[in-house]
């Protein structure tokens, strides 16, 4: 039986009068690539922030690798790699120095591993340049390298191809496939439906903070032309809680 790696139980998040996420129940299982879709403002980044212990849920629970995660209790995140939003780095340090700084957190991550992930994301040649001189695409690659550095069991990626050129996007897709083949669970949030369709096993679609569709990609595609059609139908369906 597959183990759940992420469990969201009736998750809510309210910012003042805005209900960003409501009644969100979700399970992501070990070894799968899970696509997390939704239009802008649907609540994807808010959900990811709660999974990463950055935001405190208004109600509900987040369980990662069997342990509850809150901003006060984040031990489970030690085995999680994340590339969420624009990746942050120390601009006065080189890409390599940034990774070495992060590596200092883990006794089992050494300089060899730093070089490995730099090669994996194709940043070896630019590794000695200061992070502030990196292009958006290079920062994204460095962010992915940082997320993979400690060999995480779960990889959470929010728009990982943002800023990448078509070659970079293709490389990212290939890398994600390789990672899932290696048994790493991937939670992928993206606007690129074609990318998700090609990469993910299951998807969930969020709209206005609510889950509007969920299931294996093959099942959702039944009778539909592509994932874009599934997506459009899901987000334009009448909201059951409206009115």
């Amino acid at each position, binding site marked *: 039986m597959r183990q759940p790696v992420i469990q969201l139980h009736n998750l809510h998040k309210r910012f003042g009068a805005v209900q960003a996420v409501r009644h969100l129940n979700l399970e992501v299982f070990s070894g799968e690539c899970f696509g997390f879709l939704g239009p802008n403002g649907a609540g994807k*980044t*808010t959900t*990811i*922030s709660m999974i*990463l*212990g*950055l*935001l*405190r849920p208004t109600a509900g629970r987040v369980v990662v*690798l069997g*342990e509850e995660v809150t*901003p*006060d209790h*984040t*031990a*489970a*995140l*030690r*085995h*999680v790699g*994340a590339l*969420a*939003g*624009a*990746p*942050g*780095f*120390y*601009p*006065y*340090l080189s890409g390599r*120095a940034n990774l070495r*700084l*992060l590596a*200092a*957190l883990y*006794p089992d991550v050494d300089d060899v591993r730093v070089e490995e992930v730099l090669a994996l994301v194709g940043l070896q040649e630019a590794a000695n340049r200061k992070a502030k001189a990196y292009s958006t695409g290079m920062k994204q690659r460095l962010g992915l390298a*940082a997320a993979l550095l*400690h060999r995480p069991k779960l990889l959470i990626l*929010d728009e990982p191809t943002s800023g990448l050129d078509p070659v970079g996007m293709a490389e990212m897709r290939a890398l994600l496939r390789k990672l899932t083949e290696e048994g790493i669970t991937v939670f992928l949030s993206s606007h690129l439906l074609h990318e998700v369709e090609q990469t993910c096993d299951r998807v969930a679609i969020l709209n206005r903070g609510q889950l509007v569709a969920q299931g294996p990609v093959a099942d959702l595609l039944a009778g539909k032309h592509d994932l874009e059609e599934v997506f459009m139908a899901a987000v334009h369906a009448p909201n059951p809680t409206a009115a």
Partner: protein
Amino acid sequence: MMTSFSLLSLLRIETRKLTGRALLWVEVGLLALFIAALHLALMAVLSQPNPQGMPPEAVNALQASLRWPEGLLSGLTFANGGELGGLFVVVLVAALAAQEYTWRTVHLWLSRGVERGAYLLAKFGGIVLALFLLALTALVVGGVVTGIYTWKTVGALPWHAMPWAEAGLGVFKIVLTMLPYAGLTLAVAVLSRSTMVAIGVGLGYSLLVENLAVEVLVLLSPGVARVARYLPTMLAKSVVGSISATEMAVSVGMQGGDAPSLLSPGLASVLLVGYALMGLAVAWWAFRRQDISA
């Protein structure tokens, strides 16, 4: 059960972040420059036949404080939290703490499972190390400049009479005087997530509230003078006064009937640490509740 990251490894990371920053070394350089310049200005005044109409005993005392053995400790005076040191601390701490938000690097650590309390404690530990570096710089630069002055005016250096232990203790005492400004700035940096706001509030408090407003109010009311003794700048004066070579400088600065009397150095030290812990507690309270969106 998953384990958490060790505080020691976080402290090591903070130290690496700190030493990699140009700002720290610019501040060290500027402090060194200021201290050297202030000493040279005092030495230039004393080299005149009748310096500023000062009484001979005052001239002699000032000369002694600029010569070894006492001169070794003279740089520390200027680095105390109530003087130049406070300003340097405010700018440094504001940048170290608030820029983690603007660079989004705070996300980097928290989303890896670094506990918020451990992160903040390590950050404060790194800041304290930076304060030690600033205080040590003041000691070394003051020591070198006064050493050269001693050698040029006396012709020899009194190595046998040097207060080395007192110098070590003096560095520690100067760090104590800087701590409340570090605590205040850290709290404002976390609350506002803005370097400029943290610098503005820190400098505003140090320059306007402590130096200007309090000095004016002290002249108006003896009650204010009693309360003013508990402000970090007055506590710093008390602690600095316990460093032997600086006693004269403090007493000269404290002359005048309306000046508030100082608390004992021991009590002042405890209160200085208390202020710093208060700032740290506010920062921790705010940081724990903070929503940090990815």
